[in-house]
């Protein structure tokens, strides 16, 4: 059977991965899986099976090893997402400072519910604390921190993104 190559890593990403591998003892390939998936997700917004196959092929490891990592870590999205990922922290310190209202305001504003996506935005069902408890309530958009949120501040942040 002829194997179809649906996706190949870009030269740039291959170079980055080769550099990354230098951090580890010679012959250790698996430690680069997480970084490889970050690189792919940055370009493609979410990770498809063909991406997993490409990482396994490049690192010369089993596909299941890559799939296991992709499915274990919460930052990796295996389903289609919008252009920007929003994580509103609703863990304890943020909750005490009104994060549930912040989250419902964002849901209404974007017209999507927690865990849903449209072309532009993916509202991630974030369960972790994002380590900015003294700036509660907070959120990350594409891993940039926005702290001490108010509805006015949120309007301004989304206006800026819309006008990008």
């Amino acid at each position: 059977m002829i194997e179809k190559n649906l996706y190949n890593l870009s030269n740039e990403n291959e170079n980055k991965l080769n550099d990354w591998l230098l951090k580890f003892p010679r012959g250790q390939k698996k430690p680069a899986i997480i970084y490889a998936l970050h690189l792919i997700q940055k370009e493609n917004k979410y990770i498809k099976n063909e991406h997993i196959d490409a990482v396994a092929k490049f690192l010369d490891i089993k596909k299941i090893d890559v799939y296991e990592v992709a499915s274990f870590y919460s930052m990796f999205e295996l389903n289609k997402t919008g252009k920007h990922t929003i994580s509103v922290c609703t863990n304890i310190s943020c909750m005490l400072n009104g994060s549930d209202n912040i989250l419902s305001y964002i849901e209404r504003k974007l017209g999507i519910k927690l865990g849903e996506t449209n072309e532009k935005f993916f509202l991630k069902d974030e369960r972790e604390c994002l380590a900015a408890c003294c700036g509660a309530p907070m959120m990350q958009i594409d891993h940039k921190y926005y702290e001490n949120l108010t509805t006015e501040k949120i309007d301004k942040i989304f206006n800026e993104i819309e006008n990008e």
Partner: protein
Amino acid sequence: MNNNIKINELCYATLSMENPNSFETYVSLGGYSAWKKIIANSTKPKDIIDNIINSGLRGRGGAGFSTGKKWSFINQDSDEIKYLVCNADESEPGTCKDRDILRYNPHALLEGMLIASYAIGAEVAYCYLRGEFIDDVYLSVKKALKDAYKNKLIGKNILDSNVCIEIHDLIGAGAYIVGEETAMLESIEGKKGFPRYKPPFPAVKGLFGCPTIINNVETLASVPEIINKGSEWFNKIGTDKSSGFKCFSVSGHVNKPGNYEIPLGTPFKDLLELAGGVKNNKKLKAVIPGGSSVPVVPGEKMLETNMDYESISNAGSMLGSGAVIIMDEDTNMVEVIHRIARFYYSESCGQCTPCREGTGWMYKIIDKIIKGQATIEDFESLKSIPNMISGSTICALGDAAAMPVESFIKYYEKEFLNYISKKEKKAFI
């Protein structure tokens, strides 16, 4: 309040300065002088370890174990490759202290990592940051590394000596469990973050099967000043068994939430005052003094407690990571534990049955309670679950999930029962 309280003198020393995270700022405060001294004098590793043991420095990640003793578990005579790992996977709910060290004083961490690596005989060290830091803190660490390499403080033949130590930055991808030290080793090796059985402890068999020491960011960033000023200086600060400074993240219902680095043993009420007191002049109801994993302490008790390992333990809780979560008189404690239980249910790695199933059972029952659908039998079974998880799992996440539930029920049982009687009343109507 005690106006002489010393704040932000160690790990946060650069915080009030312009360009706090630059190489020049750190050097202007005497940064890297401890490291240069060690290289110039070819200090014996054992002397450094003894120094750290005598200083009384204890792990700032949560466990509070003697840092110097941990280092001494490495067999110096063995010619095996050894590793140092810095745990920068800060993710205990309520904790944001390391993020400020990484953002504003990364060179103190790097210098601490160099000294620790030298002391344990490691030529390679890894700094593992949580994935969510990828476009924030990570950039500051990368820049600091570049500057330290440029100044020949890291790398091959450091300052033209025979000492070679490489420090590599690594990034995770979202998993609370990876903060557990052996899960972190699995993650660095490119696997799921499943904690390992111990023994063997990492100091014997750790990363890639080699002896490894894992230390928290704040622990390592405290090391250079101890070398500079001596173990006695550090040991004199704080209490008998809790030496030195500690960074506390004060969050929740306070006027000035923030990270405050204060001497251990400082009264809680002074820390609360530093943080501007309870918001809206309300009364203090409860405090979680060390991150979401530790038992809650009622406000009155906390106001009489000092911020050191022993005092907080006497108050029935733990100092943990130093995340102090303040709750005012109007806080609904069932809602708080509902959120904490949801977190542990999501973050249990699933390796051990008592934790995988138990965290789910606890969350589902608390969810039922909060929706007014629980019976008194449900509440009774909730009470029995923590005991079935504690001590039955490979790592401490099981205990971390069980302790808060137990303590919230212990102190605020009435609030749970209110939800239940509502439901039973409904059934009668």
